[in-house]
């Protein structure tokens, strides 16, 4: 298809958001007074002017067909004068000013199969990555595990009965496009074998010096294999991060039997009460079990239920564990503590227990 090069423009940036804001937002921009959750999935914002804006929040699977986006457009045209927005966690929000339209909008979304909820002390949508749908470095699928998990955790999305909000994130490899390192519960795809080097392709596909430099532990060094310039990997130094694969496609790590996922807990990004925290390792490895990942689902559900039963009001997962101590976390959840839980990378010593403040059974 020919493109008219004379008309070609670049560097225009995104359209100004002002074009897309509903009148009630334009009028009350920066002048909101308070908000409350009217019922699960329905927020009410009240402006200083007295104007009210209702937001109905529905979950999407992130991967969206243009057909379902068009369907959301039909709903927004019917109930919201054509205004909608998406959230940072793949939910879609319908912006309503006429209170009588809330219930019909909620009913319509549920009828189309998009649940309404994810507000307050609930489990909202899972932030996640591409997985096998579209990624080269995925150690597991993302959408399939997320779907399996949320089917099981579904009541927590529609209700608001947890001690505090619980944020789950999923990344299919250590690149962490989903930045899962600060979530209440994080699932992270892991590789567990050293890169398989395609010696016949490495010269054509990769720059050898940058491949050597890509390794955080210095495990890659240049080597001559069958008279050809290539690299070798010092097995004991490889921690399967796949950084070399990112710069050099001829060093593949994907492995059907060795890949899988790990589970991390107790991170947060908000400043409320406790400062932001990293997620910490709970379960080092669970094998890939497509299509429904039963072991991973059961493990996450166990952590959620143990937290729901034991945490105090407003305590996030990390705050709860900090209060009760990690030994009790492992006791209560029944998760096995292994040598893999003890850090051995840079600054590892900061995670060692450096006091005699312990609970004894």
């Amino acid at each position, binding site marked *: *298809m020919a493109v008219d090069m004379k008309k070609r423009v670049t*560097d225009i940036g995104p359209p100004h958001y002002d074009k897309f804001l509903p009148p009630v937002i334009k009028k009350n921009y920066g002048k909101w007074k308070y908000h409350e959750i009217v019922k699960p999935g329905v927020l009410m914002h009240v402006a200083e002017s007295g104007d009210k804006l209702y937001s109905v929040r529905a979950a999407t699977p992130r*991967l969206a067909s243009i057909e379902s986006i068009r369907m959301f457009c039909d709903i927004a045209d019917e109930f919201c004068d054509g205004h909608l927005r998406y959230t940072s966690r793949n939910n879609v929000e319908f912006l309503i000013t006429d209170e009588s339209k809330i219930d019909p909008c909620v009913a319509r979304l549920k009828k189309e199969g998009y649940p309404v909820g994810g507000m307050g002390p609930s489990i909202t949508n899972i932030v996640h990555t591409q997985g096998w749908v579209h990624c*080269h470095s995925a150690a597991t699928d993302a959408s399939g595990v997320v779907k399996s998990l949320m089917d099981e955790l579904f009541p927590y999305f529609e209700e608001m009965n947890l001690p505090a909000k619980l944020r789950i994130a999923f990344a299919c490899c250590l690149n962490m*496009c989903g930045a899962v390192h600060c979530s209440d519960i994080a699932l992270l795809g892991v590789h567990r074998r050293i890169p398989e080097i395609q010696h016949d392709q490495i010269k054509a596909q990769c720059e050898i010096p940058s491949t050597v430099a890509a390794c955080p532990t210095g495990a890659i060094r240049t080597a001559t294999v069958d008279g050809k310039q290539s690299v070798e990997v010092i097995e004991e130094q490889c921690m399967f991060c796949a950084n070399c694969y990112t710069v050099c496609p001829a060093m593949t790590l994907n492995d059907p039997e060795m890949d899988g996922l790990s589970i991390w807990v107790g991170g947060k990004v908000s400043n*409320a009460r406790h400062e932001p925290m990293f997620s910490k390792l709970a379960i080092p490895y669970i094998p890939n079990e497509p299509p429904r990942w039963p072991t991973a689902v059961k493990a996450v559900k166990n952590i959620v239920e143990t937290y729901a039963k034991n945490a105090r009001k407003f305590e996030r997962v990390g705050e709860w564990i900090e209060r009760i101590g990690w030994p009790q976390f492992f006791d209560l959840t029944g998760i096995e503590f292994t040598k893999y839980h003890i850090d051995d990378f840079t600054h590892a010593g900061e995670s060692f227990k450096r006091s005699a403040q312990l609970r004894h059974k």
Partner: protein
Amino acid sequence: MVEKLRDTPKIDELMKGPWPSFVKEIKLSAKLSGRAGERANDLLGVLERSYNDKIGHWKHGGIVGVMGYGGGVIGRYNDLPEEFPKVAHFHTVRVNQPSGWFYKTDVLRKICDLWEKHGSGVTNMHGSTGDIILLGCATEDLEPVFADLTEMGFDLGGSGSDVRTPSACCGMARCEWACYDTMGACHDITQTFQDELHRPAFPYKYKFKFAGCPNDCVASVARSDMSIIGTWRDDIQMDAAAVSEYAQSGKFDMQADVVGRCPTGCMSWDGQKLAIDNRNCVKCMHCINAMPKALAPGRDRGATVLLGSKAPIVGGALLSSVMVPFLKMEPPYEDLKELAEAIWDLWGEHGKNRERVGEFIQRIGMSNFLEQIGLDPIPEMVIQPRTNPYIFFETEEEE
């Protein structure tokens, strides 16, 4: 129209259950007429294959993009092109979202039409950085897609070693806690740095995220090199009558759940009256979150600027740390832009290939970094002063 959808018994298991199914979404697109349907149908086939093989079937690499840009398109190829010819090239097109992810249906419908005409009908709303993701563009369709996008007023987002598409929470558009105009700042920064966004010239990626308050709904402290988090300097605004209403509502125990959870113990409650020692408040938001009708951030508002967060690759995950405790954040945001440019000058010159700015600071030392970009060291930048005595004294100062 595809005559028959690929046979996918494994992933059909993911059509079951109450949560919306991504497999259903791909199938909706596979039923589209023309190339979009054919591509989505082959995507179903590849995915089923991955579910059987327990391995991904995508390859990265190759330089693809639109003319004059170094970013915005991520090359993606299938490793089974003979079996799944319609997804042999299946590139990702990142489209810079409008600030705050607000849309009108007319523009969303246009994007859908474009992606039916040139693509696969499969999208992500949205990608992790914030862009609208159009999944599955063939190389020859990239320029036509770009032409249609720019005609409707959209542009590509970032990828590779450039400014990545900045993102913002909904801020003043729909939140009483917004301490500055996050969407305005995000749009301004995005427009100002169009060249840096489209033409990768840095050691590695550089992300901006604009959060209106310390609740940080866009996870800026964890997910952006430059985290701009709204805050305030004066006293929390209080409506005493509304506090009493909350106290009597039975929603929580004022002493245990609100006052008792204040991280600095700067609040007290005598059963009637809530008192706040505002000088010791660290703006954590807990009490305000618990009582949105009664408490609000102060009136002297701005933002804290933090720097350096990233995911693990290469040298381990980092959270951003404080650079500027308080910045007024008023247009045209000159202070913020000057700070970003000073950082890019230094890091651009001395950063190693694929070294994020947070890792660069770890390597060269924070004090050295601050001196180079012209910021004075202040105690707000650290949790505590150093505990080791290995100090690099500058001996020439003694002479």
